C-alpha cells in the first residue's frame, strides 16, 4: 500500500530544516516532472540534506559531482542519452543560487549558448546557506550576510542581485521563467511547460531560507508570497523571447516592500532611507519588466487613471 509520502519522488527523511522552502520546491518540482528524469544536483544544502551515504531521498536517478559543474554534467548526460537514442528522458539540474548565479555561471552560460537539451532549475534562497550564510549573486541590495556584514563603514550588500532570468533569456533559449514556491500552481505549470519543450530551459524558483534570512520557519511561504506581492521578486516567463507577466499584481494593489523586509533579520539594520531606496529599486525593476512585457508602467497607469 502506498502512502502519500511514498508517492513523492523526493522522499521524506531528508534533513531539511523545519520550514525549508527549497525542500518544498524539490518535492513540488519532482512530482510535477515524474519519473522519467535524471537529476543532476550541484553541491549545496539540497545535496547535503538528501544524499548522505548510504541513504538517499531521491527516487529518481541522481548524480552529484561538484559545486560548479552541474550544467556541464547535465549537458553530457543529455548528449549521452540522445546519442544512445533516448529522446524522452528529461535531464534536470537542481542547483542553488550560489551554484547558478556565481560559481557555475560559466558552465550554465555555455550550456545555454549551445542550447543543450537540459531543464535547469535554480532554487533561489538569495544566499549561500550550506556554508553558513554568505552573500551570493542573488542576494538583494542591503542584505546582511557573513560576507556583507553591517559595520560602521559598510552596511550590508552593496550591489543588486543579478537579473538571472533576463540573462538566461538573452541567450536566446526557448524558455526562461521566474517562479516562487508560494505559488505552487505556478511552479507546477512552468515546470510542466518547460518539460514539454526541447533545448535549454531555465526556471528560477524563489524559495527563501528561514535560517539564512532570519525568520521563523513557519513564515517561509508568507515571506515568499510577499516577495512577489511587493515586487521584490516579480514572476514572469520568457517564451521564445517573448516576456509575459505571470501573476499580475496591479500597481494599485502592490504591497510596500517594508512588509517584506520587516519580517527578516537580514534587513533589521535598515533605516527609513534604506527602505525607500529598496522601494525605488523594486518599482524601477517592475516598470522595466512592464516594458519588456508590453504592459503599462506605473506612470502610464497613473496617467490612465487621471483620464
Amino acid at each position, binding site marked *: 500500500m502506498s502512502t502519500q509520502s511514498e508517492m513523492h519522488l523526493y522522499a521524506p527523511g531528508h534533513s531539511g530544516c523545519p520550514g525549508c522552502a527549497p525542500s518544498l520546491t524539490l518535492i513540488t518540482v519532482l512530482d510535477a516532472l515524474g519519473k522519467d528524469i535524471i537529476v543532476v544536483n550541484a553541491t549545496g544544502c539540497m545535496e547535503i540534506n538528501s544524499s*548522505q*551515504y548510504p*541513504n538517499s531521498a531521491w527516487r529518481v536517478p541522481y*548524480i*552529484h559531482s561538484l559545486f560548479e559543474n552541474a*550544467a556541464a554534467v547535465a549537458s553530457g548526460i543529455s548528449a549521452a542519452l540522445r546519442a544512445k537514442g533516448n529522446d524522452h528522458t528529461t535531464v534536470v539540474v537542481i542547483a542553488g543560487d550560489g551554484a547558478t548565479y556565481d560559481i557555475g555561471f560559466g558552465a550554465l552560460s555555455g550550456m545555454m549558448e549551445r542550447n543543450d537539451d537540459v531543464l535547469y532549475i535554480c532554487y533561489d534562497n538569495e544566499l549561500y546557506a550550506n556554508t553558513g550564510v554568505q552573500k551570493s549573486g542573488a542576494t538583494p541590495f542591503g542584505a546582511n550576510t557573513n560576507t556583507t556584514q553591517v559595520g560602521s563603514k559598510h552596511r550590508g550588500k552593496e550591489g543588486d542581485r543579478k537579473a538571472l532570468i533576463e540573462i538566461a533569456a538573452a541567450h536566446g533559449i526557448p524558455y526562461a521563467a521566474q517562479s516562487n514556491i508560494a505559488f505552487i500552481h505556478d511552479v507546477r505549470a512552468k515546470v510542466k511547460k518547460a518539460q514539454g519543450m526541447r533545448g535549454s530551459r531555465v526556471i528560477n524558483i524563489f524559495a527563501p531560507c528561514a535560517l539564512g534570512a532570519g525568520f521563523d520557519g513557519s513564515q517561509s511561504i508568507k515571506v515568499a508570497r510577499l516577495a512577489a506581492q511587493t515586487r521584490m521578486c516579480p514572476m514572469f516567463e520568457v517564451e521564445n523571447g517573448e516576456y509575459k507577466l505571470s501573476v499580475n499584481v496591479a500597481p494599485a494593489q502592490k504591497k510596500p516592500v517594508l512588509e517584506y523586509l520587516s519580517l527578516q533579520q537580514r534587513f533589521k539594520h535598515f533605516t527609513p532611507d534604506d527602505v525607500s531606496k529598496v522601494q525605488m529599486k523594486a518599482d524601477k525593476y517592475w516598470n522595466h519588466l512592464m516594458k519588456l512585457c508590453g504592459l503599462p508602467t506605473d506612470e502610464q497607469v497613473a496617467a490612465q487613471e487621471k483620464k
Partner: protein
Amino acid sequence: MALTTINNSAAIALAASYCKVDVVASYPITPSTPITHELDKLYVNGGFPKFIPVEAEFSAISSLLGASAAGARTFSATCGQGLMLMHEALFSTAGLRLPVVMAVANRAISSPLNIWNDEQDSMCQRDSGWIQLYCKNGQEAVDTVIQAFKIAEKAMLPAMVCLDGFYLTHSVGQVDIPDRDKVAAFLPPYKNPCVLDPQNPLTVGAYAVPADYQDFREDLSADLEASARTIEEVGKEFGKAFGREYGLVEYHNCKDADRVIVTLGSVYNTIELVADALRAKGEKVGVAHLRSFRPFPAADLRANLGGKHVLVVERDISPGAVPPVYAELSEALAGTGSTVSVAAGLLGGREAKRQAFESLFERMKQGKVKGWFCSKEKKL
C-alpha cells in the same frame, strides 16, 4: 599491417572513433588542438554521435563524466592549462569511478606562459586517481588510446593517454591504424553497472561522512593499484590481436646493464639511440620507458632494475622537494643496493642533444647524480 603516412593527432582521433566513442567534449588549447580539430572533422562526417564544443576544459571533463555516468563511451583531448583547469573534476571523475579516456598532449604550465613540451601538467594530476599511460611515439599513442578504453572500463577508472605536445601531436609519420572491425572485436561495448537510468533509479555521488569517506578512498587506491594487472593483460591481448605487445615498463638492454636511464615520453627515443651507441662500444647501459606512471609499477621496476644504478630523466619538478618519478623510483628500489640518480629539466620545450645523454651515462660511472638537467646555471 598497413602503414599510413598520417599526422599523429589525426591517427589518435581516428583510433578514438574506431573505439565507437559516443560523446566527445573538447576545448581548444595548444598543442592538443589538432586532436580536437580531427575529432570534430570526424563528428561532422558522422564518425561518432555527439561532439560538445564546450566553453572551457572544466566543462569538457564535467560533461564527459556526466555522459559516462549515463552509459556513453567518452573521449577528450587537452593539455597544460586545460588539464590544470580540469583538476578538481579529474578527482571527481575518478571518485565516481567513470572510465573517461583523454589524450593529454603534455605541455608546460604557467607562469610564465609556455606552450611547449614537458610533463608538468600530467605529473601534477598524479594523485587524481586516473590511470596515466605515457607514449614514446605516434604508434604507441594510437595503440594506447584503444587499450585505454578497455583498461579503463575494466577497472572502472578514468585514463589519460599522455603524449608529448608538438613532438608527437604535430608530427607526421608512418602509423599502422588498426582495422576498424578488429578494434570492435578487441573492445567490447561499454557497460556502466551504475548507469543513470529512470527504469532503475540510483544515487551516484552521495557524500560520505568520516565513518565512510576513507573506505571509498581506500577502494579507489586499491583498484588503481590492481589495474596494473589489467594494463598488462590488455597489453598482451593487444599484442595477440595487432602484433604489438605492451606492458607497464619497456626495458631495452636492461638485463645485464649496470647503468640504466629511466624516462617517460618521446625523449626516450634519443636516449635509446645514445645507449645503443654506447653498447656498441662495449658499455653495459640500458634504457627503460615508464609507460605506466599510474599505477606506479614499483614491483616490476624492483624486479628488473634492482641493484643497478638507475637514473631518471624527468621533465617535471616539485618545487621545494625532489621530482616525483625520482621519489617514487627511489622508494621502489630501496634496499636492493641500487643507486638512484635524477636529472630533472628539459622544461617548456628546452631540448637536449645526444651528447647531453652521453654525458649523463658517463657521469653515472662516478656515482650518484642529482640535479637540474640542461640548466644554464649548473650543468649536469
